[in-house]
Structures are given as C-alpha cells and as structure tokens.
C-alpha cells in the first residue's frame, strides 16, 4: 500500500516541501510506494514580497504570478480545491468540492491572511498592500497624493515584520523623488514601546527616522478607524488618535478558516512543536510557514527554512523510519531601507539579530532574489 503524503496549501512552504519530497522520494514515487498530493485553494502562485515593489512602480503585477501547476514536479498530484476541514484522528481532510482524502502523512501549510474587517472602520477607510489588488489600488492613490499627512499603522499579528520599516522608508524616497516631500508628512505608529520589535533594528531606525523627518508614536494598537470630511482618524487602544489624509496599514492576520472550523485553534494557527515542527500530539502531521503558532516571524524565509526541515524529516521517516533533524528557529530577512539601499538580519531561537549597515550591494541582492524566488519554490535554491 503506497504511503500518501498530503500537503494542504500551495504557498511558499507547501510548494517547496512538495518539490523537495518529489526529488528526495523519486525512486519511491516511480515504484508507486509513495503518492504526493497537494491541495491548494489557489491555482496561481503569487510572490508576495513583490507587492511592496508594485506599490512604488518597481515591479509590474504580472511579474509576480506563475501557474501553481507549472512550479510543481510532474510527479505531484495537484488539486485546485479548498480544504474546509481537517480530522487528524481519522487522518483525513475534507474539501469544498466534497472530497474526503485520507493521508498517512499530512503537511499543514495553509498560511495567513490579512483581515482588516477585525478592526471597525479599517476596511472602509484604510489601505493596505498585502494583496495584489490592494497594492495596485494604493499605488493609484499614492500617484495622486500631492500633499497632506500619511499615517502608517500595524495590526497584530502581521506577517513580514520588516515591512513596516520598508514601506515607510520607500514612501520617504518616493515623495523625495517626486519633489514634494516637504508637502507630505509621514506619521509612523507601532504597537509596542519601540519603533520595531527587533531591538537592534529599532535602535538603528530612530536616528534614521529623525534624519528623514519621519514622526512616530509607539504603543499604538489600532482599535477603531473613522472618517469625516475627507480626514481619517485612527483611534488606538492606548487612548490616542492619529489623524491623517491617507491611512496605510498592515491589518491583523489570522490563519485559515479551515483550522478554526476544525477546532484546532480559534485564530487559525496550529499548535506546533518548535523543534520537530509537528502538530502537538500528532506524530504524522507537520506544520510549516505562517500556519504555525511559533513565536517567530511569519515570513517567507521562515517558511523556506522550516520547509527544508519538514521535507528532510518526511523523507527520512519514509525511508528510514524516523525524522532526521530539528528546526533551530532560523529566520533571515532582507530590509529595504529605501529605493537604493538595503540590509538584512538573521537570527534563530538562541542567536539575536545584528543588522549590518545598509548598502547598495544588499539592495541589488534583494532585487536579484525577487527574480530568483521561482527557484526557491521549485526546491532548487
């Protein structure tokens, strides 16, 4: 009887794991000893870090999209369908199209989704850039923005924790290049008591904000957004209000509805062992990417590094009967510090980050990676 590996989700983690398994289990697949099935609600794969570049006309939307099937090794069975329920006791997933699929091993990689509707008024009066459509919509508003105050605010939790800095620095460069920076005020807010959750990044950022004339407020958690006479007011849980003409936010995120509906958790994150990356209590279920409840960054690189561990462990389990390695909490993020320089950070559970001074070289490396990502998805890079 063939071992059936089912991967739910065709984002960064799901796609990398599927392709690594297809390569690592090539012989078993050819002998029909293993079957790999991916179920994804999307039949297009979108490179989400590109949204920031679309916002500032640095990339065109169609550069970010590939057919999901085209990224997968031919030996992988692909279902374009939405998983609506997971039953880990019965080793079964249920789909919107009415299928019940049994598995021997399951990978949950259902990701996260921005949910502006969780904050009253945010969907109606705020803007975001965390979907392709919203990035294009905001790009058009920025093109027309000639003077006034832009406020930046974060929901919690949110994926890509360096994006608040990146969008702020890029806005500064954008309006400088347009020659109207003196007519545009940039007002940055952040949920905790410093301007970035990573202390060394916050320490580097304060003089940079001051040099660029970016005002900021910390301990600011959006509670309600209102609009009157063309002006937007963002009220915080801490009791202050930020008035602006244009509100740019990263909304709070939640995991997939299927995780909530299956009773796994009330926020869509799956309780995950921080080293084995297994769903707590289930030896045959792995979790990767934004879907975990681990206290680490929800980011593409996290998904990538976790995927290497999950794929290697699944291959070892199937070939040798036990997993091979632990995840050490590795995360690596580029940080664009404007249109022409960038830096990066890396850290894990035991090693704190230490950002390098921004350079053009790192920025070019990031631009190069924006094109090379498709090799990552294919499990090559």
């Amino acid at each position, binding site marked *: 009887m063939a071992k059936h590996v089912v991967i739910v989700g065709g984002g960064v983690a799901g796609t990398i794991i599927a392709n690594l398994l297809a390569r690592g289990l090539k012989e078993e697949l050819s002998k029909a000893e293993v079957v790999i099935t991916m179920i994804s609600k999307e039949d297009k794969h979108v490179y989400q870090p590109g949204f920031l570049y679309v916002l500032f006309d640095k990339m065109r939307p169609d550069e970010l999209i590939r057919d999901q099937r085209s990224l997968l090794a031919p030996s992988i069975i692909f279902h374009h369908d939405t998983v609506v329920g997971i039953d880990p006791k019965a080793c079964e997933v249920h789909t919107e199209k009415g299928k019940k699929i049994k598995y021997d091993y399951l990978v949950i990689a259902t990701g996260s989704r921005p949910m502006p509707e969780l904050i009253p008024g945010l969907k109606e009066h705020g803007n975001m850039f965390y979907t392709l459509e919203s990035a294009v919509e905001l790009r058009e508003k920025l093109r027309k923005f000639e003077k006034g105050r832009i406020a930046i605010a974060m929901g919690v939790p949110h994926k890509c924790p360096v994006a608040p800095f990146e969008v702020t620095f890029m806005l500064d460069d954008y309006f400088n290049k347009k020659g109207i920076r003196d007519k545009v005020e940039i007002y940055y807010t952040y949920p905790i008591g410093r301007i970035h959750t990573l202390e060394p990044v916050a320490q580097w950022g304060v003089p940079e904000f001051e040099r660029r004339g970016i005002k900021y407020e910390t301990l600011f958690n959006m509670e309600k957004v209102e609009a009157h006479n063309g002006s937007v007011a963002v009220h915080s*849980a*801490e009791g202050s209000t930020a008035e602006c003409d244009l509100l740019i936010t990263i909304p709070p995120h939640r995991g997939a509805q299927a995780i909530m509906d299956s009773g796994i958790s009330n926020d869509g994150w799956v309780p995950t062992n921080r080293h084995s990356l297994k769903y707590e209590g289930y030896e045959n279920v792995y979790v990767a990417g934004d879907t975990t409840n681990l*206290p680490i960054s929800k980011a593409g690189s996290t998904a990538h590094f976790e995927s290497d561990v999950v794929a290697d462990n699944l291959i070892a389990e199937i070939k040798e009967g036990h997993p091979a390695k632990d995840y050490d909490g590795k995360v690596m993020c580029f940080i664009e510090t404007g249109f022409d320089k960038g830096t990066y950070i890396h850290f894990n559970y035991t090693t704190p980050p230490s950002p390098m001074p921004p350079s053009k070289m790192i920025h070019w490396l990031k631009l190069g990676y924006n094109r090379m990502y498709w090799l990552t998805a294919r499990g090559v890079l």
Partner: protein
Amino acid sequence: MADKVIDARGSFCPGPLMELIAAIKSNPVGTTIEVLSTDKGSAKDVPEWVKKVGHELVGVEEKDGYWSIVVKRAK
C-alpha cells in the same frame, strides 16, 4: 493556572509583547494569559502596556532563566 500559555522564550521577532497583544485580541474578555519570556525587558514593557491599555496584571515572576508574566484581559 492561566487559561492560555504563550511560550515566547527565544522569540526575538515578533517578541513576547507582540505575542501577548495578538493573544489578547483573539481570546475573550476574562481570559488569563501567561507569557514566558527570556527577554528581561518583558518584565518591564509588558506591565507598562497592560497598565496603559487597562488590562489586569495578575503577576510577574522570575523563574529559572526566564520570566513568567500573567495578564487577564479586562475589556
């Protein structure tokens, strides 16, 4: 005993306070949440935030190499 425990030990990003804020928002009023943190700053910045927003600080305790901070969602 807290209703929910967040093990944010070794979390540099998003960090213990951000994890607590997320947990408070996704759990009902009255829930007690225990945050475990290896960041000594948490013993100061978590109570500060809790006071500012108006939740209830149930306790802060230094344990073997980490801090336990218990918070009750009050509103």
